[in-house]
């Protein structure tokens, strides 16, 4: 309907006249005589980003550093989960979509359908999903099947029977806390999606998992109760909880430490992505460019480390200098 209106306007009077008239009409309508908006042509220097809240702290720190370097460039960030990034990119509410998982084929297809070109995908840091238990819990390692048996109802990874109680795990046979209280993330978060895909082999989550609106809330909840287990992003690890090692396919327990995550040996390690809406052949505005330069620089990667993530290896960094 809107496009029809626009073409109508274009046919009649010149668009510019209508534009002034209409903007005045809108102004009066809203009873806000002082309302006016910035000329689209000038670059405001404000970067908007919508997406993963796992990456919120990281994005904010990058933004802070960017602002100290270029005081006129500001980053505003809305953290509402990775699933909101493709939505926002598609709806055009933002150009930068940080995501803690790669876009699904469907999300990418939707984007291509809307704009005619794929979004630019950049890896910006390395992270991992960790399974955490209370700091006094004697449990130290789990197999992939056990993780699936604990968190899912579908047993898609080849497990035998669901594990519901601490007594069912050999390491906690004497741990008399009854059922395992499970904590996780809400549906929209990339952490939720990735854990489902990688740890549950695409199966279904149990429905009695407490879904928290943030990873730090998961860690805090597990740190408060001795019978709890949860999954969260590596960067939220605190001494209140203990991160479990996971057995890889060769049967070796790999602890989630920096080296194992950077090399990808830890089974649930992942990249963090930044999706950019960039039409082919166009260049990004200077503010966005400055942000990407910072992220790919050594300093940017050190900031990632300070936020609890793992820096990219230089080969990955060199691979993606094409924006």
């Amino acid at each position, binding site marked *: 309907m809107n496009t029809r209106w626009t073409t109508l306007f274009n046919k009649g009077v010149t668009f510019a006249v209508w534009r002034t008239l209409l903007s005045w009409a809108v102004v009066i309508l809203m009873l806000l005589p002082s309302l006016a908006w910035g000329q689209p042509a000038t670059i405001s220097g404000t970067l908007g980003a919508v997406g993963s809240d796992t990456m919120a702290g990281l994005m904010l720190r990058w933004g802070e550093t960017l602002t100290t370097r270029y005081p006129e460039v500001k980053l505003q960030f809305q953290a509402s989960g990775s699933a909101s990034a493709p939505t926002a990119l598609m*709806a055009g509410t933002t150009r930068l979509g940080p995501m803690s998982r790669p876009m699904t084929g469907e999300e990418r297809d939707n984007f291509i359908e809307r704009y005619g070109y794929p979004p630019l995908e950049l890896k910006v840091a390395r992270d991992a999903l960790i399974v955490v238990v209370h700091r006094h819990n004697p449990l130290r390692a789990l197999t992939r099947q056990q993780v699936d048996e604990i968190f899912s109802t579908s047993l898609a990874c080849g497990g035998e029977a669901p594990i519901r109680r601490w007594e069912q795990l050999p390491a906690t046979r004497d741990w008399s806390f009854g059922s395992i209280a499970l904590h996780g993330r809400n549906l929209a978060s990339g952490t939720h999606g990735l854990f489902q895909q990688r740890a549950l082999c695409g199966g279904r989550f149990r429905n*009695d998992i407490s879904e928290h609106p943030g990873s730090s809330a998961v860690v805090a909840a597990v740190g408060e109760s001795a019978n709890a287990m949860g999954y969260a992003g590596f960067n939220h690890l605190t001494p209140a909880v203990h991160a479990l090692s996971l057995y890889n396919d060769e049967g070796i327990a790999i602890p989630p430490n920096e080296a194992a995550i950077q090399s990808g040996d830890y089974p649930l390690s992942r990249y963090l992505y930044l999706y950019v809406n960039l039409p082919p052949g166009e260049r990004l505005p200077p503010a966005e460019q400055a942000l990407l330069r910072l992220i790919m620089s050594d300093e940017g990667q050190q900031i990632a480390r300070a936020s609890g993530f793992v820096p990219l290896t230089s080969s990955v960094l060199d691979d993606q200098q094409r924006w």
Partner: protein
Amino acid sequence: MTLPRLPSSRQPLRLLKDRMATGLITAGGIGVLLAILAIGVFLVWETLPLLAIGDTFALAKFSPLAWGTLKAALAALLFAIPVALGAAIYSALFMSARLRARIKPALEMMEAIPGVVVGFIAGLILAPWVERHLASALMLIIWLPLSAALAGLLWQLAKSRLRRRLAFSWAGLWLVPWLVFMVAIALWLAPWLEQQWLGGDLRQLLDQRYGMDYAARNALIVGVAMGFAVIPSIYSLAEDALADVPSTLIEGAQALGASRWQALWKVALVAAGPGIFSAIMIGAGRAVGETMIVLMASGNTALFSASPFEGMRSMAAAIAIELPEASPGGQTYHLLILAALVLFIFTFLVNTLAEVVRQRLRRRFRQMGGTL
């Protein structure tokens, strides 16, 4: 209303201005009303696709939300109704007028405390505490009424000089330190009692004997937190209703031989019944729609469980965390809008019912009381 004509030269201009102003006000007023109507229209419009298809899968996803909403609201009301009605009865019928003028605004002030603050306290402070001290928390529920009764007993036994000092009409205030004292005793006693009677750990007992799970963020926590938020609205309206009961009714009942409490229980409460009913309805409306408290304190587990120790997911909380991510036009989007529509219709109906009842009651009292 017709306006008198005046012999004035400026009259046409004045009348014109008047007519224009009337038109403007009418337009503004109707515009506002239309804007309000637009909310309902928008919600219905956006849910039509979902309802038209009759998508059973979507509706199946919807039912745990509806259950969670009801469970949260019920838990809140279970806590709020006794406390709020008790407070309303006391402050309308027994409290000293001077104290009442201070206490009533103070309690109504509770309503102003933002939900996000209450939710934060409940979710991050109260929930872990209760998890570690479940026995103490449950004991408080029994202990508090008992300590109130004990206060009454001690007061009966006290010397009349002390009784005059600590008048019953001021009990709402001086019971506060008493309750603090009793709570302290309960917290001190509870671990010992748990050791003696419950074999050391109540949660283990619950688990082993009754097979009950305990989630840290559960209906109990939500009930207390949201009860806290709902108490003031119930209290305020119920108090108004009780204070409006014509005193002639109660005096008449007592003249006919009713005891003091009978007069109150059988006459005042019954007379104010519709008012109290509408107060509860308004409280229920608030409990159903409260978002932040449930979001932060409920654990958001989409469970069909009646256990007070397990969590739930409410419609309002689901909207708040999932809608920003739902792509417009998608199934989740429509589903969440349906949840909003249900909330809208439910609260609107409940409030309308409450309002109609309240107005009818007021009219009845006006006829009865005469001077009111």
